[in-house]
């Protein structure tokens, strides 16, 4: 379950990576364009751009297992969430406001490490799909010893 402190971190305009798999257990990955913690921390909605996440969206319709990694680039503090996609829909105008806010925050945090805001603005972000995921386990992903260890009590292996 995502606690309030973790929810703040996940929604703070940091890098979001997603990973999915197909029936042959081959993976796909890319960057999500924002996330929203829902249902008191039991669920997470991530926004996957149509242009770059086509294969993952196909994967998720057949195989709902989804991994989402959040990383604050300034200190590499990282958390990975794993779970099942329970709903996939086209993102709405309201979602777009959240996506635009995310892009602005991301541009600001990446600017600290020298990535030009002009580049961050150009990252493909619309149209998007909103994928709602039931969170089953949370892992510490900061590089170093213990990376991949569970945060709190995992309900399922990572």
């Amino acid at each position, binding site marked *: 379950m995502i606690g309030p402190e973790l929810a703040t971190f996940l929604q703070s305009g940091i890098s979001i990576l997603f990973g999915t798999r197909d029936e042959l257990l081959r993976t796909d990955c890319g960057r999500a364009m924002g996330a929203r913690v829902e249902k008191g921390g039991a669920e997470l909605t991530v926004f996957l751009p149509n242009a770059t996440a086509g294969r993952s969206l196909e994967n998720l319709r057949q195989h709902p297992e989804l991994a989402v990694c959040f990383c604050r680039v300034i200190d590499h503090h990282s958390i990975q969430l794993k779970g099942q996609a329970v709903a996939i829909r086209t993102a709405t105008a309201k979602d777009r406001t959240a996506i635009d806010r995310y892009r602005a925050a991301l541009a600001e945090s990446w600017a600290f490490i020298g990535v030009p805001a002009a580049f961050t603005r150009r990252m493909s972000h619309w149209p998007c799909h909103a994928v709602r995921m039931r969170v089953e386990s949370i892992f510490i992903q900061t590089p*170093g010893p213990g990376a991949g260890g569970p945060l709190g009590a995992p309900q399922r292996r990572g």
Partner: protein
Amino acid sequence: MAERAFEGLRLEELRNCFQGVIPSIIATCSRDGIPNVTYLSQVYYVDPKHVALSFQFFNKTNRNIAENPYATITLQDPVTFAMWRLQLRYDHSEREGELFESMSMRIQMIASHTGMAGVFRLLSADVYEVLDIEAVTDFLLPPDPAFDAPIVPASPSPLTELRGLHTLLERVAGARDLEDLLARTLLALDELLGFSHAMVLVPDEARRRLVTIASRGYPDDGVGAEVEFGAGLIGTVAERRRMLRVLHMDEELRYGRAIRSRAEQCGAIGELAPEIPLPGLAGAQSQLALPLLEGERLVGVLAVESRDPLCFDDWDEAFLQIVASEIARGIERMQEDDAGEGDGADVRATPPRAPDRLGHVRRFVFYRNDDCVFVDGEYLVRNVPGKILHKLLVEYLHEGRTEFTNRELRLDPSLGLPKIKDNLESRLILLRKRLAERCPDVRLVPVRRGRFALELDCRIELVEKDSA
């Protein structure tokens, strides 16, 4: 939608992406179908069909690969930000050899700067076969002319640089002595090739340290500054005798600090060493250091740096290697030339200058326990250069000598110079420069090759002590 293009796209064309500037993403999947996604610090190019990933810590990625050898990674160009997705299959792991060494050096460098030498290290270089390369053509939207200046990739101009290299080599060939050779090289690197911050260090093998004997582009010339073998970029290059290039230094250090912080939180290790401040240019983002080798023997390290995070590329490496071999040969040649010079003439009859007519007094103190010399209460030099200065001052004060030969220094057992490859010339350069910096009224002036004069604009007082 992204287009599949492996057949038309060669891995070599993605060379810019292998510099570790923009971290890659890796996704793997366990046998029971749970995907895992995380950042990778760097992907290494192995050959047109293989890449290598570094394995430092046991984590979920390794466990998944052991169960299911397929992975997907992204690569991004640090200049254009274009993205590619690569499908990989694990092939094998290497724990020694060329690939392992070159990957391990970069990790050793980060580890030593962040106080984790021996804690954070490469366990293996994991080689993957590249099954497919896909350009993620829609990753970036077209530039908005209202906001975005066009991104112009830096285009090297090999012809201009080759001419620069040719001129540099000509200038170096005309050097009178080692000091002149190093000064000419660093000046030419700056003027002709744009390397405006560069330094040369020579090894003191007995103390496992490198000492700076020439530099250009720094507010303080730093001559005499020391680096331990194995410490930081320069020390790592000296220890491993391999070139190392690091771009986006801030990012490398952030990565190292993140690992350090995790290691501390997990209590996985004992006490960590303090972080080592970066030497040289404040705020340097790109560093490239090359070993100066004569055969297998290390005769020095050439280091260049820049505040531009993407300053150095493969081309810089290629022609700096030529410059490095030329400097190494020059160092060797100067030693050999010099070994046969300066003998024959009796220099003991040199008339002394009349001390009474010189002005103020410089007070030198020589500490026998560590061969350290202080002048007027401030540290000047130590070790072999300290012993040399002590000898010169003693002979001046007792016998009135002002001219000396390199040969007599070589033959003096009290100086403890090795019988062969003694680096005497480098040690004299260091001494000469330290005097120029700290005590300019005492000078060592070359008279001709293998012979130099002690010139004084002051009176000398020399005190010897066992220890401080």
